């Protein structure tokens, strides 16, 4: 973990509200499912903003984010050559090293970007990776998964593209040795329940408001079957079986 100023290499809108920010890596660690705290202001905002690693390249870090409020709006104003402060990498990501066989990645909305780095690392680790991507209407980042996935399934709520309905309709957990999921909590709960029913291990990536991002303030603690856990340090990725009471 380091805190450093990094130069913005590009900051490109993918859709109206989704951007990809590429910044210098400066040798920082970066593992699938981890995140960075980002800051692109002086005193205007009090807290840094947590954004997952979308892709970690040799010299660059890629973040994909949706503009939802003041912080992400500030991020969207960044131009190549601007400076951004990065704190990371942070947290506990997906357990790539202990995987084997076949793994399904199930992402929804802005839960999709972190699965890109995850697919890459799983594939590099020799695991067959199937990807399930659920969108509301507009697709993004699908092509990023192509080099790193055996199969890619896509859904949109109204069927604008791909399957019409929820991505979980397409998932058969019993085909996999493990399922990793990231996205809206309702989706992850559903995935976790399906996996629990089939006794397939499942990991989920949680979101929570954060202050320090490094485990010091206990601002992001959540209750789990294994006691209070810090999303920023003990997570954001947790085994599903400690998370959702209905499956415990």
């Amino acid at each position, binding site marked *: *973990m*380091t*805190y450093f100023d990094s130069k913005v290499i590009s900051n490109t809108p993918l859709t109206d509200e989704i951007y990809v920010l590429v910044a210098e890596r400066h040798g920082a660690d970066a593992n699938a499912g981890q995140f960075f*705290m980002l*800051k692109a202001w002086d*005193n205007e*905002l*009090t*807290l*840094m903003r947590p954004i997952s690693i979308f892709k970690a390249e040799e010299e660059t870090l890629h973040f994909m984010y949706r503009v939802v409020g003041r912080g992400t709006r500030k991020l969207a104003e960044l131009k190549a050559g601007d400076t951004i402060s990065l*704190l990371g990498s942070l947290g506990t990501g997906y357990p790539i090293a202990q995987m084997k066989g076949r793994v399904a990645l199930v992402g929804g909305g802005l839960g999709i970007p972190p699965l890109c780095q995850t697919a890459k690392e799983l594939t590099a680790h020799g695991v067959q990776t199937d990807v399930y991507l659920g969108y509301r209407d507009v697709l993004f980042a699908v092509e990023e998964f192509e080099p790193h996935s055996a199969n890619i399934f896509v859904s949109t709520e109204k069927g604008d593209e791909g399957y019409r309905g929820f991505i979980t309709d397409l998932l058969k957990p019993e085909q996999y040795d493990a399922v990793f999921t990231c996205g809206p909590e309702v989706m992850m709960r559903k995935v976790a329940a399906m996996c629990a029913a089939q006794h397939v291990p499942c990991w989920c990536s949680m979101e929570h*408001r*954060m*202050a*320090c*991002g*490094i*485990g*010091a*303030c*206990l*601002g*992001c*603690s959540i*209750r789990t079957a294994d*006691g*209070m856990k810090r999303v920023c*340090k003990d997570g954001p990725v947790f085994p599903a079986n400690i998370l959702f009471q209905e499956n415990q």
Partner: protein
Amino acid sequence: MNLSTTINGVLFKNPVVAASGTFGFGEEYNELYDVSCLGGISSKGLTWIPKDGNEGIRVYETASGMMNSVGLQNPGVRAFVEEGAAKMRRFNTVLIANMGGSCIDDYVAGAELLSSADIDMLELNISCPNVKSGGMAFGLKADVAHEVVAAVRAVCTKPLIVKLSPNAENIVEMALACEAAGADSLSLVNTFQALAIDIHQRRPVFRNTYAGLSGAAIKPIALRMVHSVCKQVKVPVFGIGGITTAEDVLEFIMAGATAVQVGTANFSDPLAGQRIVRDLEALCDKEGISSWDEIRGCI
């Protein structure tokens, strides 16, 4: 200039202390910089009984500030004495154990046990709701505060800092009561009781409705409180509230504080502690300050 300062016989290498609850037990920030460069570290608030803290949203950003409702999640005094204190001792800096509580018996039990631990000072946080008197915080009324401070004083063998709440009905009377009850020093302020509402959901952002406001937003009020307290008490004071820069540190010292604590600024800038210490040295030179005595309480 030599930045060191002494409070209750304890030598601080500089007056910049990490504020309770924002710095854990120092471990995490020590991965970013050597936290031994700080004057001291005040631990996460400890309670006699371990606590899980509050449910729901715990931190929320506001204009130049933030609100928190962590709810004193902590492993309990005993676990700290058995493990945490020794870990913190690795850092070459003043160790302050911060302790909260919701009834006098727990405060006394905690203070007794902490007196046996390898810590330098005990900071008594009297802002927590007093369960035995209907949730009204000890920190609001001077007579209630006097009672708990006196009880803790009786068993505490460490220098005793009492941390005041800015929600106190009268901060000066509160300070005088704590001093009279045996506080060796005071620290102020803790967070301001505040409210945020989620207008879409039509409900408070925090489960407990109210939460504590901190950060740069509160600095001018905190500075006023530190100033009026320092004019009246004889014990040394740690100034707290929105300190973000070395300039802020000088403001608090000129208002009468002997040292300061930095909280929310650690979140805005994870290197804030280190940066403030470094800048302070340069700033004192620039302002031609040759000793703390020269400026402390100069206004």
